[in-house]
């Protein structure tokens, strides 16, 4: 990588003008090594967790996390038919949730895809890190983000590509 050239490129972004349940990034370029997805999500409904699927897949995924809610620390493992950005710790109603999702080796067709997420739900589940594995060797070409309820207007979703 030449000096002065960024290793991270902004690929796509949406800021919601009205509430919605799902945001999808499609036709993702295969030119990068990893992806970073930054979510500033405002959940209207207190519901299930903020989740991600790849290429429309509903294959069962193992998820685990460690987090602190302001009272105690916890760690859990769960299986869902999606990658959970918080292992089932939803963004509370009207809370501004933060997720920085790192998707490694997304174009590699020899490996399952791992995701590491820093998640913040500052008025409810607090701060933590979640990990998940999508047991599929397909290259990731689309990422869909589900609120588990409804994303309010003003929620933003930004996708970046990390060069090798």
């Amino acid at each position, binding site marked *: 990588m030449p000096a002065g050239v*960024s290793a991270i*490129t902004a690929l796509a972004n949406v800021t919601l003008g009205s509430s919605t349940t799902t945001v999808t990034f499609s036709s993702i370029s295969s030119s990068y090594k990893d992806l970073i997805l930054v979510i500033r999500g405002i959940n209207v409904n207190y519901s299930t967790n903020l989740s991600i699927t790849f290429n429309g897949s509903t294959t069962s995924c193992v998820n685990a996390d460690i987090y602190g809610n302001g009272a105690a620390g916890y760690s859990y493992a769960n299986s869902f038919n999606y990658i959970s950005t918080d292992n089932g710790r939803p963004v509370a109603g009207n*809370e501004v949730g933060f997720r920085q999702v790192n998707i490694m080796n997304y174009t590699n067709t020899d490996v399952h895809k791992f995701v590491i997420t820093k998640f913040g739900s500052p*008025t409810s589940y607090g701060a933590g890190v979640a990990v998940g594995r999508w047991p599929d060797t397909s290259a990731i070409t689309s990422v869909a983000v589900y609120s588990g309820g409804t994303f309010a207007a003003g929620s933003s979703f930004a996708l970046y590509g990390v060069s090798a």
Partner: protein
Amino acid sequence: MMFQKLIQTATVGAGGSASISFTSIPATYTDLCLVLCARATSSTVNMTMTFNGSNTFSTARYLQSNGSSVTSTTDTNFIGNSPSSSYGADIFGNVNIYFPNYAGTTTKTFFADSVAENSTTSKFAHLISGQSYDTAAIASITLNLSNFAEGSTASLYGILKGSGGATVS
């Protein structure tokens, strides 16, 4: 499109300093990322953050691990522990703070992760999530410690988003 650009950087000089400040932060980026490398000159190691002159975040929850146990509590402006003056020479801890949509006119939030470690004698790792109902754009950020040691550095980066490329339903 360049993803991340350095806005300001600060290095603490001889004698140390009780604060490191970033002012006149331009509102032209999407998000901010602040990277701090710090050490205290005393045994008081709690680092805190205020913004826009004096504001603290309305609420924050954090997870703390010290190598033997995990705890969690609430706060409004805590961003982690720095290495104390008793740590081995040249040991500085790190904090990474992310502010999404800092220039917007809605609720502000941040996420921080920090670490300070001195081999087997003392170690801390923190994850912190905070929210403020102050809707003003973040134009200044101040980091506070009992006294930042000479050589402590802080860098503020602006992050630009891409455009389009997503569908909603």
